[in-house]
């Protein structure tokens, strides 16, 4: 696969974290990498963000956990995961075989749990950054409760930051009135980067049985349906913070990813698209390379944040 690599610079910097290209996998959509390893050349990814990790294993929510909605899907998996210790012991060694930055997404029901998980991962070798999930809509405690309040978001960020030397990315929820306010708050608290958006809370009803499609009643909407909302929020946040922003939400194609980059996202995460095409992130990367070639950019950083004022008027 090395024959078609261009001489163009695709590498981007997220604080101290240098990525060979700006396309990563979104947490919860790519497992711990092993699920896709047989089919996808993982060393081509910009980074992998693993499924959210908590201190103890979590069983997750009862099924049904997913339902498709027009141009999207709702999920209420409920952060099922093996727990941070099992991850380090059983899943991380697989990932460290590859030349691939590993970003561990972390979750806690309390600030103390976030800190503890961050400390444990900081001791492990092979983790390159933490993504702090203060935005999961599908668990009763923690998650979104932290992400919806600027002071609580800042508190988690500050405490996690103090507990680790790893770069800290804070992942925001769109289920708030003013996402830029939350973004400013976590930046002030020391976040090295911000990723957004997590899923948008939604619901779907089976009219024959008159029951919610999801056992959890509500779930998080992802997929192309949310892309315009995600893009608008990424754009809003970029106006207000100076730390790097990672854009995600409904990115299915290179065109989608390019919109986020032009708006100013330093990198993108590909999520739900992997459920349809296992190699979606790689396809998107190829599409970005083609665009750079067609538009004669030598360096992707020349493209990032080049949104011009005004709409399509001519």
């Amino acid at each position, binding site marked *: *696969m090395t024959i078609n690599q261009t001489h163009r610079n695709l590498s981007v910097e997220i604080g101290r974290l240098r990525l060979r290209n700006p396309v990563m996998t979104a947490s*919860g*959509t*790519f*497992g711990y990498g092993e*699920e*896709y390893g*047989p*089919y*996808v*050349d993982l*060393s081509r990814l910009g980074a992998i963000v693993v*499924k959210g990790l908590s201190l103890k294993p979590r*069983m*997750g*929510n*009862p*099924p*049904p*956990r*997913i*339902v*498709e909605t*027009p*141009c*999207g*899907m709702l*999920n209420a*998996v409920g952060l*099922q995961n093996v727990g941070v210790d099992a991850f380090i012991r059983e899943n991380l060694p697989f990932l460290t075989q590859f030349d691939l930055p590993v970003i561990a997404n972390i979750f806690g029901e309390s600030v103390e749990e976030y800190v503890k998980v961050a400390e444990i991962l900081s001791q492990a070798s092979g983790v390159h950054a933490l993504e702090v999930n203060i935005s999961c809509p599908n668990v009763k405690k923690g998650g979104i409760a932290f992400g919806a309040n600027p002071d609580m978001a800042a508190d988690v960020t500050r405490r996690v930051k103090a507990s680790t030397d790893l770069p800290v990315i804070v992942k925001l929820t769109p289920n708030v009135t003013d996402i830029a306010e939350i973004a400013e708050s976590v930046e002030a608290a020391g976040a090295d980067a911000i990723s957004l958006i997590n899923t948008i809370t939604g619901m779907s009803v089976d009219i024959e049985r008159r029951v919610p499609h999801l*056992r959890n009643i509500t779930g998080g909407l992802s*997929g*192309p349906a949310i892309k315009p909302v995600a893009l608008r929020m990424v754009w809003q946040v970029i106006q207000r913070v100076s730390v790097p922003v990672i854009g995600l939400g409904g990115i299915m194609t290179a065109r989608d990813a390019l919109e986020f980059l032009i708006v100013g996202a330093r990198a993108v995460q590909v999520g*739900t698209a*992997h*459920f*349809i*095409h*296992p*190699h979606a992130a790689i396809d998107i990367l190829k599409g970005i390379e083609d665009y750079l070639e067609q538009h004669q950019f030598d360096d992707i950083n020349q493209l990032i944040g080049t949104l011009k004022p005004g709409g399509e008027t001519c």
Partner: protein
Amino acid sequence: MNKKRVLWVGKVLSNREMMKGYLLMSVRLPRTFDAPLPGQFVMIHLRDRKDILLGRPFSIYGIQYHKSRVILEIFYRVVGEGTYSLSLLKRGTEVEILGPLGRPFEVNRRIKNIVLVAGGLGIAPIRFLLEYLKKGISEFQPRIRFYMGAKTAGELVELDRLEPLCEDINVCTDDCSMGYHGFVTEPLEKDLKSFPIADTMIYACGPAAMIRRLAGLLEDHPVPCQVSMEERMACGLGACLGCAIAVKGQNGGRQYKRVCKDGPVFDIRDILWDEASKEE
């Protein structure tokens, strides 16, 4: 780096309605498509429908190998938007196929008695298994008894294709339109007493209510039983954790397994019914 191929483009060869709402689709695939085993499934993704995002999982009903191509068959029922759109596909349409996926039925060649139990569309993986047992491995000739249930005789559309493969088919219908009037588990219960436990394997697929009745029946008969389960899926590869099924965990606890990756074939005695039966 050489990676295994899992995503294929197939061409619809036929997509026939066998009875109202039940269709049999054949899809042509390249010869390099991995040979599937009975119990495995594919995800079929409609290429031209941007609003229908996810693939839909289907048990493999049959497969035929030709010199330069493979013909994959699925038997399905229209239950929602996805399957409705699938039912409209014309000959020549391209679809994306992810697969073959999942853990197949385990076949132990020393087993002398094989019992197949299928209800409704559960016939799909069971038919493939029957064909595999009869044609795939010629030196292995177990005695096969087939218990096949349906709401009505009309649902047994492919019976004529099954009869040459098995002499011992026990048909049961809910409405008395054919064979035994009642659930498949009823004639099975009578026959179970005569099966040598150590030498018998039951393979089953069907609606949750049927599987649950079978599980109840097997509480008194310690015959091993593998069952193919279903759940809504997104990725089919074990990553999204959408297709969770509650099974017995270690120390008598419960845990969720993935139907797509840990299954779809499970030991019937591992399934916890408080949640698995929710759809009934």
